[in-house]
């Protein structure tokens, strides 16, 4: 069982302390008032002696007490519920905000190493589960303990013998519940696995239904499905049945306890057993009521513990994210700006420090020059971009932009120099405008002008203008890419990075987009990773990379003249 990082949760709970105190006070009031209601009911029962023997004055005052207790219990339970919600929701809100803030400060390496779903899960699902855990713990844990203790005390006061019977027998129902839940756990796990298998079979054959039908495999697939499904049915039957045994069995054990209390209580009340002292019919009613409900707080507490285990796993994931090392601060960094000088001085870098990647790379690019980076997949092209943007820091050597080592400048000022279009176009689910400005305040005319230059105006108009809500699926690949180019065009940076920006676009769209690129790149220092040879050929400098190293650099003519890797690559590309 994972430990719950209580101390750290408390830190976030601290500002909401008043709710916590209120919750605890209310749960104490609630549990105690609720406990005394059956006592009062018992006392009033004892007034019902027979014809013309009911003491109405006494009955009235008892009923008055009951209504007071019920009102106190009701109100305190409501206040407790509301404070618990407040406490949990606000604490979790603070934690979520802290995580998002943290995400902005984590190095890119963190995102590249972790599946995106995992991070999203921490912010959403893990936080929700922690919130559920907090609510449940404060609602049921403390109340449960007070109720159990109070019941025990009252039972012992009334009749120690009956108290002993209840205390002795009730654990049986807890053991039974535990027994069944641990037995069914394995069955549920198996069911989940078989269900996942079946789902993936369904997905496979439904998403690729064309192949199934083209090859006339319909019946064969149905037969296969039936075998898988029969297994699932049997397991589901097992799991469903065994898990449904818990309730009848614990109910039976509680009924036995109830009968035992009725017996011993009845015999004591009749004066046949005198060991625990005699009791009245009203006390018997009260004790039967307790016996009927004694198991409930135990079940609730064990439920809380199960829930908390789930919460603990999530909480630990959240805190490990919050503990991850941040990028070094650049608070006192210099502002980087200038015409677009880029220099790499003896740069070494690798992701996995045990495996060398970029080694002693030096490079000088004058303002306005276009640099094409070529090489086979995995040669380090994208890595070079990561270093230029300072998404990663070099291991040794220096990246110098406009005369400043990027490590000495602020990241924001460095990145203000760059415009970047990546292979994977990133579109968020919001309006066209928001996608282009990313929240900056830019005049509509300027946006439309940039869109026109990038040939994106046509489809934006077709979509219904800048206010249209868009998402990844509502646009074609080419349209997404055009928006990304417009986005960079709007910010009008001094230098550019284009990483395979047209590789996923079809041939006819590429023609359109490349015009926009030419316009964008005019007069700007540009680094281009491309597969289109005309782009490469027109570059002022070509860097040929292989296995993380720059194996050659020069103009197209020079490199081709030398023969070697570049010409192999070049002729390979054009076949």
């Amino acid at each position: 069982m994972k430990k719950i990082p209580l101390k750290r949760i408390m830190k976030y709970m601290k500002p909401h302390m008043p709710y916590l105190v209120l919750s605890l006070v209310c749960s104490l009031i609630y549990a105690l008032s609720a406990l005394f209601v059956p006592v009062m009911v018992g006392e009033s029962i004892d007034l019902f002696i027979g014809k013309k023997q009911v003491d109405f004055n006494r009955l009235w005052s008892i009923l008055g007490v009951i209504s007071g207790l019920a009102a106190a219990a009701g109100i305190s339970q409501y206040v407790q519920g509301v404070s618990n919600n407040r406490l949990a929701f606000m604490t979790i809100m603070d934690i979520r905000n802290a995580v998002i803030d943290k995400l902005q400060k984590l190095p890119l390496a963190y995102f590249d190493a972790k599946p995106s779903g995992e991070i999203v899960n921490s912010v959403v699902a893990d936080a929700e589960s922690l919130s559920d855990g907090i609510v449940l713990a404060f609602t049921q844990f403390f109340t449960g303990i007070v109720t159990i203790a109070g019941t025990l005390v009252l039972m012992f006061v009334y009749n120690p013998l009956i108290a002993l019977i209840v205390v002795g027998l009730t654990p049986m129902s807890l053991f039974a519940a535990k027994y069944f839940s641990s037995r069914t756990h394995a069955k549920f796990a198996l069911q989940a696995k078989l269900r996942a298998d079946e789902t993936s079979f369904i997905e496979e054959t439904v998403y690729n239904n064309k192949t199934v039908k083209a090859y006339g495999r319909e019946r064969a697939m149905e037969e296969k499905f039936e075998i898988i499904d029969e297994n699932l049915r049997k397991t589901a039957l097992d799991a469903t049945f065994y898990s449904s045994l818990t309730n009848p069995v614990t109910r039976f054990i509680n009924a036995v306890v109830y009968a035992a209390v009725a017996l011993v209580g009845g015999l004591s009340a009749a004066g046949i057993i005198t060991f625990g002292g005699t009791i009245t019919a009203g006390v018997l009613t009260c004790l039967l009521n307790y016996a009927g409900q004694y198991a409930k707080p135990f079940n609730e507490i064990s439920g809380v513990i199960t829930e908390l285990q789930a919460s603990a796993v999530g909480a630990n994931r959240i805190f490990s994210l919050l503990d991850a090392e941040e990028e070094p601060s650049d608070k006192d960094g210099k502002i980087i700006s200038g015409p677009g000088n880029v220099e790499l001085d003896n740069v070494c870098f690798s992701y996995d420090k045990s495996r060398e990647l970029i080694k002693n790379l030096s490079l000088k690019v004058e303002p306005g020059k276009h640099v094409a980076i070529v090489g086979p997949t995995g040669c380090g092209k994208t890595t070079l971009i990561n270093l230029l943007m300072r998404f990663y820091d070099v291991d040794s050597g220096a990246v110098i932009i406009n005369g400043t080592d990027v490590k000495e400048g602020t990241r924001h000022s460095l990145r203000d120099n760059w415009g970047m279009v990546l292979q994977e176009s990133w579109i968020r689910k919001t309006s066209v405008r928001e996608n282009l400005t990313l929240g900056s305040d830019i005049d509509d005319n300027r946006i439309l002008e940039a869109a026109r230059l990038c040939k994106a105006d046509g489809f934006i108009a077709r979509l219904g203008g800048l206010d249209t809500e868009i998402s990844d699926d509502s646009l074609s690949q080419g349209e997404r890419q055009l928006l990304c180019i417009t986005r960079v065009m709007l910010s009008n940076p001094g230098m550019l990075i284009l990483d395979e920006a047209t590789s996923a676009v079809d041939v006819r769209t590429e023609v359109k987009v490349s015009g926009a690129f030419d316009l964008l790149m005019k007069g700007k220092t540009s680094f281009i990773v491309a597969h289109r040879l005309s782009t490469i050929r027109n570059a002022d400098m070509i860097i040929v990379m292989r296995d993380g190293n720059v194996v050659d650099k020069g103009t197209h003519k020079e490199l081709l003249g030398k023969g070697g890797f570049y010409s192999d690559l070049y002729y390979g590309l054009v076949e």
Partner: protein
Amino acid sequence: MKSFLVFFESRKTQSLLAPVLKLCEALLELLVPIFVAQIIDEGLPSGDSVFIWTRCAILIGLAAAGLAFSVVSQYFSAVSATGFASSLRRALYAKINDLSFADLDKAGAAAVVTRITGDVERLQTGVNMGLRLFLRSPFIVFGAVVAAFCVDAIGATVFAVAVPVLAVIVFSILLAGIKKYKISQSGLEKLTLLTGENVTGVRVLRAFAKENEETEKFAEADEKYTKAQTVAGRISALMNPLTYVVINFAIITLLYIGGIEVDSGDLSKGQVVALYNYLSQILVELIKFANLIITVSRAGASGKRIKELLDVKPSQSFAENEIISDSDSEIAVRFENVSLSYGDGAKALDGISFEVKRGEIFGILGGTGSGKSSVLNLIPRFYDATEGKIFVDGNDVNLYPKKQLRDKVAVVMQKPFLLSDTVKNNICFGEADETRLAEAIEVSQSADVIASKKDGLDEEVRRGGSNFSGGQKQRLSIARALYKNSEIVLMDDASSALDNITERKLREGIARLDKTVIMTSQRTTGLKCAQRILVLEDGKAVGCDTPENLLKNCAVYREIYDLQNSDKEAE
């Protein structure tokens, strides 16, 4: 929901017995307060220990019988619920294979998967709960009221008032809670969306230095969500206190009425206790019942969606009898003025006419969305033309039975798909003819692929074909099409992931085959071996001729050609 009854058919007895047995259990539970009342009224005053002992023995007997009824009932309901779900899943799965692609597109593949998995699962839970509780909970509530009336009509009026009041409170709080919960849920979805965007877009956001804005944006959405959550929580938090107060008010009234009646000699002490005990039973069952209604209504929504899918009438029908006289026409495939629109959308193909000769290698060229795949889809009737006619081997495709038509045509899909099975089964789908297999492997250039795997032809393909690269998958799916031994092979951009040398070898191999081949590509280089090429743009034919003539006469062809070859010529 009548139409679902047929899925209970095979387990009718269990499905009927489960609720009946549950009812018996409830009946036994209702007897308990009566025996407790007897102990108080008769056992205590008389001091008769045998009487008390027997009454307690009866209580245990009731509990034991209840346990037996309940266990058997749980078993039966589990049997019928899981059995029901299984029959339903199989029917749905078979249904998919009956539907045409147009039907499936309309339903949506992802939605169909959800129907068979999640929706059936929810329905199963609903059925299981329903069989167990649908009779029990109302029976206990109403049974307690009836029993109370039997004990004392005047005292029972408290029940008659309390039960409806409690029911109204419980249901309205639950319904209001669900509504607010839905609102807060959409807030949570927004948080998920924003976080996801922050993670996937981290490079762009940092490149534009938008970190602080993102944090603020999230905090804003977070606060909205937390508020909605608090509102929803406030409503749910009312449930327990409110019902508690109402029940206690009922108890106070009951005790007061009880006091009067005992004083007048109409009621005994034990009977008051019995009434009190019945009252306590009601609340628990009422809340259970309300929750059950929610589960069942959720299942009902799933059931409705499932029914919609089951009720879809396949939009395609095929002929029953094989066409005996394969006309030995020289034309393998002919399109006559064919148009196609998917669903309600614009025309994907518009007035297309062309002929493919037997044994010819025929190319279709065009960009994304130009209609290349659509042309191929029509030949094996994956879709039906909206207008015009298509002939295969001289006969209208609509006259063929399904099997005969699809045996004639082998298709290589644009997105190659390998099943989680061995490589061999993926190519042959069943018994293998070794000579044909060897030929298919050779021509499709799959020998390298198979040799590179530890178990060769017996290598297991992992889910989604994840242990094979795109190019490897393409080659294997070409092998599959060639193995099928059909006269006509359709290749939909099927060599896009192959390197140049492999592609050339593949082309040469295909050219040697005695088959009619129709292949599509975005690039002129991909159609090098085609004798004639149909050029498509926006669903219209803009040229259909030999590559040489196209270069002279077709502007679109020339444009694509130039773009791909300019680099080379510049040398």
